[in-house]
Each structure stands twice: as C-alpha cells, then as structure tokens.
C-alpha cells in the first residue's frame, strides 16, 4: 500500500476537518447545559452469582421501610428496590397511600406553591397536576409479583430473577417525569429533533407571545430581583393541558404582584397557537418553564 498522500486524500481530509470544526463550533455553541446527574448511571459490573448472593439477603436484616423512590430515574431503571427485600414486602399499603409522584414530577423541592392565603385571596396556584403519568406502583407490584411469585408469604426468596421479564418491563416503562427529556440511548428516544435554528425560532416565538400577554406591575421592589418561573405543560394544539405552576413563589410579599402578573400572563396566553411547523416536534416543547424578568422601567 502506498504511503504517499494523494489529492483525493487531501480533499477528503480537508472536508472532514472542516466538518468537524463546524460541528464543534455550532454544536458546542448551542450545547445544552448538563442535565441532572440522574441522566447518567454509574456502572459497576458484578457477576450473576454475586448478585444472587445480594438478593438472598441476610436472615437477621431489619424489615425494609417502604419509601417512595427518590428520583424518577431510579424508578425507570428498576422498580422500588425496597419492595424486593426478603421479608414480606408491605406492598399493599402502597396503594391506598397517595402516590408522591406530584411532588417529584414538577421540579420543586417545596410543597405545592400557594401564595399567601390572607383575604382577599390572591390567585391561588392549584395543586400541581402535570399530565398524569403511569404511577410506578403498578410496576412495583408487577415486578414484585414477578419476584415473589413462587412463594407468597415465605420469608426466604430462593428462586432466580427472571431477566427477560425485567427487560420487558423496562421496555414498557415510560418516563415518569414529563419535564425530563428522554436521554440519548434510552429505548423511547425516536422522535425527530429540531435543528438549532428551528429551536431558537420557537423559543423566540414563545418569548414574544408571553411578552404580549404580560402586564407587569408598575414598579420593581427594592432588593434582590425576583424572576417568577412558571411551568407550563402543553397539549399538541398549544393549549395548556395542565394548570400552570408557579415553581418559585416569592418569599418577599412585595413581589406578590409580580408573581400574580406572571401567572395571569400564562393564563391569558392560553391557548397558544403554536405555528404548524413545530407540530412534529411537540415532544420537545411539551413542557416549558417561563421566566418573567421584571427589568425595571426606571432604568
């Protein structure tokens, strides 16, 4: 094989280098911020036998507490781990308990936002109710049933895991947090993606729409600026499919009027007639967080 570089080689090399450069410039210029750590799962490899040993458990281990799964991502990868330990899992008590899902599906650490309730009552922010997603409880049950099947009440599990059944459950699992996008590599990720310019155009369209609907209060209170953030969930026709949620109610009552004006803007802009060219990419703009920044008109 000749070691001398040919003209074709130069051309191909040049094109690929240019392409790489362009991809780096444009790709990283619009690179999204890193998603939550839950998107990536650290991997440790163990052998089948080691796993079986772990699953057998210890005879004198304390009975497991039933806790809600900490993050939706964990729920996706496996059903409630606490349901698996050897002792009779108190799973039936799961069902009457209202699933804690609403607290997780909206990215808020605090209880459902509710502005000050003193009369006259301001705009109440209803309990967050994003698009109802299948609760993990049935899957917990299904998986647990799978695991516990051969022995209903005996304290000691001795049968092997059925990896095929678990894999099947994983394939059926839907993302429990609608705000989190399907990450690369997960089975659901098959929808077409918008180009950067199209996505930017859609963001600009949303921004202008909400700006037109917004009547901010006349002045800005002193102190640290408060930017109301409202989470909206759309239906494909651009109308709100769930009550919008103010995810950061102001701690300073002086900003209450601003928070209310933001909520009014979102309600006034309903339904939004999203232009049809964005319709195929609905999954990517189905949920949005709108930030209302009150730049002072006093300058």
């Amino acid at each position, binding site marked *: 094989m000749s070691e001398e570089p040919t003209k074709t080689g130069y051309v191909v090399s040049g094109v690929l280098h240019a392409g790489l450069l362009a*991809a780096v410039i444009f790709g990283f210029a619009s690179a*999204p911020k890193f998603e939550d750590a839950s998107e990536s799962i650290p*991997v440790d*490899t163990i052998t089948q036998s080691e796993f079986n040993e772990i699953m057998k458990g210890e005879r004198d281990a304390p009975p497991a507490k039933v806790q809600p799964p900490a993050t939706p991502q*964990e729920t996706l990868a496996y059903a409630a781990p606490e349901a698996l330990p050897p002792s009779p899992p108190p799973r039936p008590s799961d069902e009457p308990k209202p699933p804690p899902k609403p607290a997780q599906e909206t990215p808020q650490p605090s209880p459902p936002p509710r502005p000050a309730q003193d009369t006259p009552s301001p*705009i109440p922010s209803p309990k967050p109710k994003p698009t109802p997603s299948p609760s993990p409880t049935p899957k917990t049950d299904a998986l647990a049933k799978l695991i516990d099947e051969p022995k209903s009440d005996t304290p000691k599990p001795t049968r092997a895991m059925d990896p095929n059944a678990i894999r099947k459950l994983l394939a059926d699992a839907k993302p429990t947090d609608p705000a989190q996008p399907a990450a690369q590599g997960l089975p659901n990720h098959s929808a077409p993606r918008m180009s950067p310019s199209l996505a930017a155009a859609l963001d600009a369209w949303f*921004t202008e729409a909400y700006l037109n609907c917004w009547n901010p209060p006349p002045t800005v209170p002193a102190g640290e600026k408060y930017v109301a953030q409202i989470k909206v969930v759309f239906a494909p026709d651009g109308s709100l499919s769930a009550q919008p949620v103010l995810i950061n109610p102001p701690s300073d009552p002086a900003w209450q009027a601003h928070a209310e004006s933001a909520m009014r803007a979102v309600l006034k802009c309903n339904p939004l007639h999203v232009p049809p060219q964005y319709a195929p990419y609905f999954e990517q703009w189905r949920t949005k967080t709108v930030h209302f920044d009150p*730049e002072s008109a006093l300058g």
Partner: protein
Amino acid sequence: MTRLGPTTMWLAAMTWGPSRVNAATTGERAALRGGGRRKLGLLSALAALGFMAASNGALAVGDIYVKAGANFTPALVAVTPLQGDDAKVGAVVAADFARSVFLQPVDPSSFPEAIGEPDKRPNFDAWKTINAQFVVTGRVSHQGGSIVAQFRLWDVETGEQIAGQQYSGEAQNARRISHLIADAVFTRITGEGGFFDSRVVFVDETGPKEKRRKRLALMDMDGANMRSLTAGDNLAVTPRFSPNAEQVAYMHFGDGDPKVEILDLETGRRESVGEFTGMSFSPRFSPDGRYLALSLSEGAASNLFLYDLQSGQTTRLTDDAAIDTSPSFSPDGKQIVFESDRGGAQQLYVMSASGGMPQRISFGEGRYSTPVWSPRGDLIAFTRVKDGQFGIGVMKPDGAGERILTEGFHNEGPTFAPNGLFLMFFRDPGGESGAKIYMTDIFGHAEFQVPTPSYASDPSWGPETK
C-alpha cells in the same frame, strides 16, 4: 455508586455490559490491522461528527426568558354598573381609572353581559372576548343620609374574586367612597399604594394677567370639591401640606417682607412662623411634622434653617454666600435635598437633615431647581431649565438615571402623589393665558390636565386622607 441498590448494578451490568467499553478500542484496533492510519483518522472523524450531530438536538427543552421592557399596556378593568347606584359611585371609579395610567376602564358600550347578581361569578368567557382582564361588580344602597357601597373585583383569567370590600359613610362623602374603591382595586392589581383618596393644595389664580389674584385653594386630586383657603387680598404662593394634611405652610406677601405662615385647615387660623428679620420663604414640613425647613435671606444670600414647630427653636443648616432654597426631606426624615447656586448655576444638593457637608447630585446641563423627594424614597423630581426649555424630570437620590418627563415652556414645580408613582406640576404656556395643573406618571406614559375653575399653579399633593 454505592448508593444504588443491588438490582441497579445488576441491571446496569446487563444493559451496558463490560464489552461495550471496549468497543471503540476494538474498532480502532481493527482499523489499524485493516490497513493504515488514514482509515483510523477517517473513522475517528466520522465518529466525532456523528457525536456532535447527535448531541445538538436537545435545545428546545430550554426555558423561555421573558424580559419586561418597553412594552407597556395598562390592565383593562371593566367597571360594571353598581346595583342601586344613582350617586354615580361607579362613574367616579371609572373616571379614576381613566386617569390612572396603569389601569384602563373598558368602554361600557362593549360590555358583553349585564351583571344581574353582583355576588355571582360573571361569565368570564364573555369578558375574555373583549380582552377585559378584571371585572368590578357591586352594589350601592342609601339609607337616610348615609351610603353603603360594596364591590367585588374579579380576575377574568383565573376566574376568582381577588378583592372585595364594603364602605359606609355619609351621603356627602360618596366621592370619597368611590376613591376608596378605586384605591382598593388599584392596589390589588398593581401591588402599589393608592392615591385617589387624596387632596391637593394649590394657588388659584384669577383676574387679568397684570393684576392676577393668587389665593390658596384646596381640591380633591381629581379637581372636585374645590374651596378657597385665603381671601386673596394678599399674594400667597408655594403652599405645602403638612404630613397629616391638617396644616398648610406657605409664603405670604403682606406688609413688609414676605413671610412663611401656617394655616390650620380645621380652624382657618393663620400664624407667622418664627420671628425672622428679612425674607422667609420656601417652607417644607418634615415627615414627622415636627419641623419646618425653610429658607431665610441674609443680605444677598439665602440659607436653610430648621424651625422646631413645638419649641420655636431655629437651627441653621447651611452657611454660605449662595442662595440655598427649596428644601425637601427624604421620607425617613434623615436627609434634605435642596437647590443652591453655590457652584454657579443652580444645582441640586443632598445633605443630612441636621446640617453638614452637602453633596451635589445634579451634573447635567442647565439649571436644576424645586427638588422634591418621593414618598417612596427612590426618586427626586425637579425642574430643569435648559436652552429656554422648562422640563420636569426625575433622578435617583444619588443623581443617577436622570429622565425628563415633559419639556416645554413653562413647566415648573413638581409634587409627588402619596404612592410616589405620579407627579403634579403646573404649566404656563405664556402669553395672555395662565398656568394649569397637570398630572403625569413617573415613567412619562401619559399626562392629564387637572380640572380647575381658573388658572392654577404651585400644587402640593397631600397624603391619602385619613
């Protein structure tokens, strides 16, 4: 890693498997074995490109950032006819909104429904068709010489009642009740203090220009209920309200030097302030009502003094050969802004209310005068004369952010509304006519003339009536 349960680790192992980690290396090794570093380069480049392209798509998940800016639209409020309202309470409320800049009343001829039951939810879908954002319903009843009025404020977007209140009083105070309703609605929607239930003391000017009669007068902020305070045989100018609106300090031209006097609105009694030789003028009350800051002439100069209204003691605040005048207190009473020509042309200075080194805050071109400190503390309004043009402007207390709200011949003498969002001033177009009082918001969105029976000047806006 150790936090994950055993199942996770097992499943991860099954899904991603140890073999995947080695894939690239294997491929590369294969390429190398296949023939030539060239192929390796090609493969890496293609892999990199593919990776870049795949990672680009997640943009639309980004948040939307809306910045409030130049777009200003008032909130549309529909004031529906109040049930049983023949005292025109609703009309005064709507008129207040029409002059409020931040709220705007909806034209009644476009109302989509007639409110039959004021306590019941209106048909919000109908109101949305005319873009009304708020609806006011209510009822008024008269019993003998008293009036009872109640209102409900409905938010069309959320479909909730967000305010409601009942007021009662003497029938002659019906206008005050309207202003209280307008204040409640204004405050609920904008989050700002109200300003409709307030009064303005001013100079009422009558007669021909050569022989103008100037006397003190009082009116509601919308021009209603005007009454004279002095007889007008002597000139009275620059009236200033006391913080509790019970007294008016002003400059009186009688026999001898012009002097500061205080008029008690309740009793009508007038008394001179202090025993000063020479001219005293430009009086202004301190926010706690205890002191009067004023200017005393000393030869060619004028200096600022503090007069204790209870003890009669006088304290000197400035001591220089310039003309220092027009003092105005900050709302916390700790500072005074005033006008001085010590640097040449008149400029604005801020100093401690107990005297001390003044700091100049105005540095623009022109002559700055008649400063007033906003009750909110965040702005100082002033008159600026530049190239023969008289402008009313505002700046921050440190002098930054100077903005001129109106300019022309001849604007002068701003005074702040109780909520610090509006200014009144007077404008004299010159010639044979006279001055009129105008109202504007501090952003310069809109301007309204205040109806007075004759010419009017030197407005001083009092606090919300208690």
